[in-house]
């Protein structure tokens, strides 16, 4: 099977992202450190591998966010995100 068919998107990472950030991150806007493109985290492309996931920029394929789960640890590499803007539910 082609890897394109196996790929998911940031919606599928919504659960694990809430382990990290508590509130929903799929609607947050992320700016790619590779190309500067900005879009909802849900539109990043998710590839699964062994113990974790990588979310890639749909524009330039930079790995924006990597999450690996090992026993007792969630290891997160956010170096591909330049900026995250998170909808706030506090001040309406």
């Amino acid at each position: 099977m082609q890897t394109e068919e196996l790929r998911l998107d940031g919606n599928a990472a919504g659960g694990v992202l809430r382990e990290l950030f508590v509130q929903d991150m799929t609607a947050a806007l992320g700016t790619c450190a590779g190309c500067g493109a900005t879009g909802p985290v849900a539109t990043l492309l998710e590839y699964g591998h062994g113990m974790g996931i990588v979310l890639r920029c749909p524009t330039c394929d930079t790995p924006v966010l990597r999450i690996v789960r090992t026993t007792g640890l969630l290891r997160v590499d956010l170096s591909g995100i330049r900026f995250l803007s998170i909808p706030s539910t506090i001040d309406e």
Partner: protein
Amino acid sequence: MNEAIGESVATPPRLEWQVASVVSVTQETPRARTLVLAVPRWAGHRAGQHVDLRLVAEDGYQAQRSYSIASAPADGMVALTVERLDDGEVSPYLCDVVQPGDGVELRGPIGGYFVWEPAQRGPLFLVAGGSGIVPLMAMLRQRGRADVAARAQVPVRLLYSARTLDDVIYRAELEQLADASQAEVVLTLTRQAPPGWSGYHRRVDRTMLEAVSWPSSDEPNVYVCGPTSLVESVATLLVELGHAASRVRTERFGPTG
């Protein structure tokens, strides 16, 4: 801002795994079945959201998958509809083995992007492939609960691609919606069509989208869900047809039917 409730509004409940019990199972099609679940700690959900579900084997091996919520927020229960992939790890268990009274581990609701709120005015264009109908059905069900005036603000069209007519999930309910003029429902069958079938009989393509969708000038809110290949080709075509990428929301299910 109301200071008394400010903090509770600002802090969503922590997402925790819990055991839900299966209340009932319904066979929707030969390959898909709906599980109605009683979830002990459930803060309510939005149409389009999903849950993560995990199976734990006796030796500790775990398999985790996402399943969209089919029920409307006001339905007061959580319904999932799972399509059976013959060589899959999790879906055959959910489709063949799980019985009422069993427990399944899940966490949710999850998602804030692929959601629809009745307050979003303007036409709603839904495109589903296979089990991708599930989160869109939650949107249709929620809209169906609104009064006539509110529904008039949100005309809705569904383009639904299924392998055969027998594989159309929620077929009777969709026919009712169409008969009551509550939604325009357009089916396309990608494999076998019944004798005398006058509807579409091919994969979703540009001509079909052009014929079925509202023009981009009507600024419809578009939701596309299903197998990754369908979602990506439909989203690309819609943007080529002039729809703003920001109004075409997508959710990839992976290599599903």
